[in-house]
């Protein structure tokens, strides 16, 4: 028998790399978070500088948190646990290295392009097309490496952690590819093939499932490995693992439209989003139960072991946010909570609580194993935990309070049928103190993190220098055939390919049923409704709006709720955004909705407002945009833009496309001339002339803002229904 044993070693060098990258990027993501939290409380921190302004920093923060911090943490945990659970080295060390360096380069590319304003504006998918391609390539390399490892395993059956890794790898690939189908305009700009409701639906199918399959399933996999390891206890229920795994991956994929309740999305899709979110509650809690009850009989460790503290807190926050998620998906609750800071609080109880705490627990578990050196200070670990926990609590409580407060103010209607708080800024002023509390929470969390960095530094310094890979022995898989009485799922766990195929089927069903029907957008727009596309200048202004990230503070979607109609005008319809590439419905209202702002104010109002919002609206916390008054419009690119849009189906005539630059500069000329006259009227010393103004970006942006909500002619439809 003994000659059947094979010897092998694990590639822990790659785990170390991913682990250190996790720590570094975590610091970056947290600092950016603190910066943008303070920008909302204190607008001066936008520094009147284009690449530090909130609209560009917020996407940088979310990308750093999700893909750099959580991403590297996932990879570190997966590379460590997969090798051990499958009793084999990673399939190919070179692939591992390409994966690592490729991923860091992608993050670096994001860190450069996002502040420069190269963005598709689709949340958590902002990166422009060349980077999208790079992500696809690196993800394929990672998948090959993972599936190669699975194929070469010495363990017949796949442990539940591996199931979750498989679901992650497959689904993220599907999500990323489908959501990123875009048509390049230039090296760093593109338009999505989807428009309006399609784009909204695909984006939130992606966005929601990025949370599901990037921030949930891989972390559940990590939980299933690291909690039993750290507590030295058996997993509570294998049966529960099976039921909650399959129900989770099948149901999760449907829930995306809960981000779009009361919008112009067809009712049936909204209702599907809501009910699947409700049905997701139990499958999510299955994971929590299995995590927490694994600790049954080991609760004493909670007092003495900081690692267990982190893990128990993580799983508890997971349970909390997966209860709150379905709650927020109920239509009437969404009516109150959507677009407010409640959602921001919800996200951070998941990100800081579940992802953050689990990552920290995992890091503290792995460092002594990888560097063969006990952590320098257990006490510092415990302090880290308490700082982190206090930070999250302050963050969460302040944001939920802010969200509900503002939501109640937005919807309050008095006996005269008027809004009680018609002045939007008043509802913002009310919650600014809570923005400071939130920032303090973030700082506490960051202090805890700094304790960890110091602790790691001291540990690594003391670690032995020589680190030879240990050699392990195991029999090949064939030595351990399937038992004849094995149940069907046990058998399935022995078949990597069949298992993966089933997981793929589980996530593709819901995707197809929800997305396919909306691809035929024309079906949803009545025949006698006429929609004009944006003029070349307006489209240019729109690209500036996207570039500046105005959508991180402004929605363009008046929901079907009376308080929204009173505040912003007629509820948005499908026609309103049917040529919008990308859609700009937004997800958070730090400022008012802009769907019908066109014509609400004179050009001069916008001119002064964009230059200095506080000159027009006292107490506004919107950043100033002085650079738009200096940077020039690239008129020549309008032809290329219109060509692409025409190819995508926007009804521009060939003549419009051919003369796009001319049409744009004519319109700019008109706006600039009237603005210059009015500025002279106000102040005869004004140095602004029509000539100095006509090629500046601000003119294009004003043209766009004035076009919002003015492009749809549904008078025939309205007459018909009356």
């Amino acid at each position, binding site marked *: 028998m003994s000659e059947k044993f094979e010897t092998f070693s694990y590639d822990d060098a790659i785990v170390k790399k991913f682990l250190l990258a996790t720590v570094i990027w975590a610091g970056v993501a947290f600092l950016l978070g603190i910066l943008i939290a303070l920008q909302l409380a204190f607008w001066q921190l936008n520094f009147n500088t284009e690449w530090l302004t909130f609209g560009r920093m917020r996407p940088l923060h979310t990308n750093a948190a999700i893909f750099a911090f959580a991403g590297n943490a996932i990879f570190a945990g997966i590379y460590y646990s997969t090798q051990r659970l499958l009793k084999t080295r990673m399939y190919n060390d070179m692939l591992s290295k390409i994966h690592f360096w490729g991923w860091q380069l992608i993050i670096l590319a994001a860190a450069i392009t996002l502040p420069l304003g190269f963005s598709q504006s689709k949340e958590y998918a902002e990166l422009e097309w060349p980077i999208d391609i790079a992500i696809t390539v690196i993800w394929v390399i990672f998948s090959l490496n993972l599936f190669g490892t699975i194929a070469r395993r010495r363990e017949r059956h796949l442990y539940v952690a591996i199931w979750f890794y498989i679901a992650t790898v497959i689904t993220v690939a599907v999500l990323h590819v489908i959501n990123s189908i875009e048509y390049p305009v230039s090296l760093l700009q593109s338009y999505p093939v989807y428009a309006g409701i399609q784009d909204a639906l695909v984006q939130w199918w992606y966005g929601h499932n990025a949370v599901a399959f990037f921030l949930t399933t891989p972390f559940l996999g990590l939980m299933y490995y690291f909690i039993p390891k750290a507590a030295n206890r058996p997993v509570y229920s294998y049966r529960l693992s099976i039921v909650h795994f399959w129900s989770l991956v099948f149901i999760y994929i449907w829930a995306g439209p809960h981000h779009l309740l009361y919008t112009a999305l067809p009712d049936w899709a909204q209702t599907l989003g809501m009910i699947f979110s409700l049905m997701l509650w139990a499958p999510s809690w299955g994971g929590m139960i299995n995590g927490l009850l694994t600790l049954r009989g080991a609760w004493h460790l909670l007092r003495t072991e900081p690692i267990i503290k982190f893990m128990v807190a993580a799983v508890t926050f997971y349970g909390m946010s997966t209860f709150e998620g379905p709650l927020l998906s109920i239509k009437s609750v969404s009516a109150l909570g959507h677009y407010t800071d409640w959602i921001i609080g919800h996200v951070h109880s998941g990100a800081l609580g579940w992802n953050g705490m689990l990552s920290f627990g995992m890091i503290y578990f792995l460092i002594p194993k990888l560097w063969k050196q006990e952590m320098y200070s257990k006490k510092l670990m415990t302090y880290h935990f308490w700082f982190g926990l206090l930070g999250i609590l302050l963050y969460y409580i302040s944001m939920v309070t802010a969200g509900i407060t503002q939501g109640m103010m937005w919807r309050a209607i008095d006996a005269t049928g008027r809004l009680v708080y018609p002045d939007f800024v008043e509802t913002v002023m009310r919650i600014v103190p809570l923005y400071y509390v939130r920032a303090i929470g973030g700082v506490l969390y960051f202090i805890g993190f700094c304790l960890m960095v110091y602790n790691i530094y001291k540990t690594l310094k003391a670690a032995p220098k020589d680190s030879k890979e240990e050699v392990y022995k195991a029999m090949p898989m064939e030595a351990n055939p399937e038992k004849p009485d094995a149940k069907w799922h046990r058998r399935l766990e022995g078949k990597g390919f069949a298992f993966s195929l089933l997981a793929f089927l589980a996530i593709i069903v819901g995707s197809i049923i929800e997305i396919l029907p909306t691809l035929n957008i024309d079906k949803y727009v009545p025949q006698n409704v006429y929609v004009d596309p944006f003029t070349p200048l307006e489209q240019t202004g729109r690209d500036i709006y996207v570039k500046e990230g105005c959508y991180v503070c402004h929605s363009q979607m008046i929901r079907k709720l009376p308080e929204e109609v009173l505040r912003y005008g007629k509820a948005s319809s499908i026609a309103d955004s049917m040529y919008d590439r990308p859609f700009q419905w937004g997800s958070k209202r730090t400022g008012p909705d802009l769907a019908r702002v066109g014509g609400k*104010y004179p050009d001069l109002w916008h001119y002064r407002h964009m230059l200095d919002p506080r000159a027009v609206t006292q107490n506004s916390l919107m950043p100033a945009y002085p650079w738009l008054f200096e940077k020039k419009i690239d008129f020549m690119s309008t032809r290329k833009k219109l060509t692409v849009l025409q190819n995508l189906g926007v009804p521009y005539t060939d003549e419009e496309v051919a003369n796009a630059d001319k049409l744009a500069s004519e319109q700019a000329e008109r706006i600039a001339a009237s603005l210059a006259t009015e500025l002279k009227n106000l102040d005869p010393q004004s140095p602004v002339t029509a000539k100095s103004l006509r090629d500046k970006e601000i003119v294009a942006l004003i043209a766009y803002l004035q076009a919002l909500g003015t492009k749809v002619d549904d008078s025939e439809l309205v007459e018909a229904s009356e």
Partner: protein
Amino acid sequence: MSDIKDDEKEILLDHDYDNIQELDNPLPKWWLLTFYGTIIFSVFYYAYYELGSGPSLSEELREDMQVVEAKMREADRKAEANIDWQALAKDPEALAVGKSIYDKNCASCHAAQGQGLIGPNLADNYWIHGDGSMPEIAKILKKGVLEKGMPPWQEILKPEELQATTAYVYNMIGTNPPNPKAPQGEKIEL
């Protein structure tokens, strides 16, 4: 090997992954009931709203708006029925309300003392619309001049607020604030 308690030996599965073992505890009852409950609720919910007679979101909105608009009309009717403009123009309480509304909503376009900025000078005797009398000012406030950039205020301000603001604006006429915008419209002597 995991640390196994005596009462767990029965349900311990015969398997070991990197020293991780699994128990085969049954699914918790309350958990299963929650799961079934949400599924059953969902089926009925979808059937009622999307297949059955449940109202669509647009229908719900239409009904809600009818209620709101009825309230609005009723309040407008009451406020306009017994208005005494002359008394209002001298009522310090109303003028204080008018000032706070003006500062918040109008100063950005007509400047702090009505001297005019983006919108015309309100403190002079020149009028683009109407004759500068209070009912006429109220009319402009209500309907606005949207194509020229003056927003309508009828659905935003409560009727009493709108009247108070009218009185406040009326009192600004002839106050000669500094840096006035050049007159626009017809000169009208009151």
